[in-house]
């Protein structure tokens, strides 16, 4: 069954003059138990999309969506409050800077106990207090923190980034989510610590069958940890498919450029040669090109590209480009 099925989600930024289409008709589909990467360079609208899914965008933004199904249920038929209730029950999110999300004045233990689901507790209040403590310890155990005694007594600033992120994941697990959205959970960390967090997420996916939407600006970084990948650029849908399809046979010029631009430890391009790269940089919201927004940077762009391309689907591999690279692989 599909866990989530979103079609044509758009997010507009209201301005004094005319609204700006920050996210432009994006699709996102996930199966139960899947780890999907959501990839695109900074400013592609990944965080906006995630915030729209969990319904936390403020009134500056206007969200339109043609279809929003959650585990077979049509959420658009529900009132906003009912929708919010379904989502808060089943979806949790963690962010880039764990330190900033924790309360600096309270211990980790206090914050964890706060996060424990009341529905799991029973009995009188003194029994509940004990259960809360136990539940907090359990959560720390689940995220692989062995020294829980020391950890619960610490304040956030006394822990490393990676430890804080583990605590954030523990808090997210408190509500036993079905989907965890991880918005660049390791972006602010050194890469030796990144591995720890990715491994933890992978084990939660396997042991608890928790689905994960793993957001990253770096395609190469997440390929090892995902089953499928959706690529966005400047608020538009680019391409979606299995990780193999995206990494080995990308159909979209942007994905191709992402794959080609990174020197790999194993690849054979000559030392110190020029790397393949797209010229220029991602446009800001105030200067979005019309049609395909990659146009000004795209090596394959032609006149037709001033009109936004429609999504073409080849089995499970979708691409949004007038001139996909499909035929270049034989």
């Amino acid at each position, binding site marked *: 069954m599909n866990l989530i099925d979103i079609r044509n989600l758009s997010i507009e930024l209201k301005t004094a003059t005319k609204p700006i289409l920050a996210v432009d008709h994006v699709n996102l589909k996930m199966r139960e138990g899947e780890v999907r990467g959501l990839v695109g360079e900074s400013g592609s609208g990944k965080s906006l999309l995630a915030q729209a899914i969990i319904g936390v965008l403020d009134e500056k933004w206007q969200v339109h969506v043609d279809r929003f199904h959650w585990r077979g249920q049509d959420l658009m038929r529900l009132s906003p409050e009912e929708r919010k209730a379904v989502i808060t029950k089943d979806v949790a999110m963690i962010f880039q800077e764990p330190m900033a999300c924790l309360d600096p004045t309270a211990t980790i233990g206090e914050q964890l106990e706060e996060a424990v689901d009341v529905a799991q507790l029973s009995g009188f209040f003194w029994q509940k207090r004990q259960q809360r403590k136990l539940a907090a310890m359990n959560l720390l155990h689940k995220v692989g923190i062995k020294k829980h005694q020391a950890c619960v007594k610490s304040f956030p600033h006394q822990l490393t980034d990676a430890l804080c992120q583990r605590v954030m994941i523990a808090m997210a697990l408190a509500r036993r989510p079905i989907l965890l959205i991880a918005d660049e959970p390791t972006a602010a960390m050194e890469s030796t610590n990144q591995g720890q967090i990715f491994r933890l997420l992978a084990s939660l996916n396997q042991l608890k069958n928790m689905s994960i939407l793993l957001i990253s600006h770096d395609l190469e970084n997440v390929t090892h940890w995902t089953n499928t990948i959706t690529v966005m650029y400047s608020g538009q849908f680019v391409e979606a498919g299995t990780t193999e399809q995206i990494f080995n046979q990308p159909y979209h010029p942007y994905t191709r450029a992402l794959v080609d631009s990174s020197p790999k*430890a194993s690849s054979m391009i000559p030392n110190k040669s020029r790397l393949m790269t797209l010229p220029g*940089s991602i446009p800001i919201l105030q200067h979005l090109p019309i049609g395909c927004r990659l146009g000004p940077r795209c090596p394959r762009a032609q006149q037709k590209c001033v009109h936004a391309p429609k999504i073409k689907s080849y089995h499970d591999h979708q691409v949004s480009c007038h001139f996909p690279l499909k035929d270049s692989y034989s």
Partner: protein
Amino acid sequence: MSNVLLQVVNLSKSYKDKNYWLNRRCINALEPLSFNIEAHKTLAIVGETGSGKSTLAKLLVGAELPSTGHIRLNGQTLEPGNFKQRCQHIRMIFQDSGTTLNPSLTIEQLLDEPLQLNTDLDELERYQLIRETLQKVGLLAEHMNFYPHMFSGGQKQRISLARAIILQPQVIILDEALASLDPSLRSQMINLLLDLQQQMGLAFILISHNLGIVRHFSDEMMVLYKGKVLELGKTTDILQNPQHKHTKKLIMSQRFQLLNR
């Protein structure tokens, strides 16, 4: 030996451990190490968190004083206290240098600052040099009157690079300066750095976790582990034929991530 630009001899650093009573214990952040770099060459430094990479960088730019050893540039010993001499020749770019630019200064003022502090150039000469430097990093002379917030992340990186090369240094240290960049920006930046190396004969010291970048960018590499040098040699040799089990683990972990696909 004639081409040696930077010569590091027996350099080490220990910090007093503040957690211990009467400061009796020391942390050896860096055990004595020696190496040479030639012009046009890149030395990569890899190692896990806490292995002493940033400590070495700080010693080289003079932000920290070494416990032992000394550094020679073109055969001349750099005096520990002589910042002016050192600033000019050895520059450093940090991880998020794009965000550390002073927001209240224009690009011209930002680039003028190191020139006023370190050179005797007059106003016109400085203006000319700023123009040329902006062009070298792929920006326009018109950008001089812009403020940092008017630039994208990639352009800000170029400005910090311009700031680093404007004194025409001989060595540039990149401490994870490429790590947080978007991939397309990162490859633009690598191309630019390689071009500058060719034009100006710069030597780079590249601190990076990404072995792909290390392989592409560097000529020699050094593997640090708990403040000790495990391996030092040609990058291709070490990557193809690592001697130490720790190096092997480092290489395997990244190869596994990519080749498994």
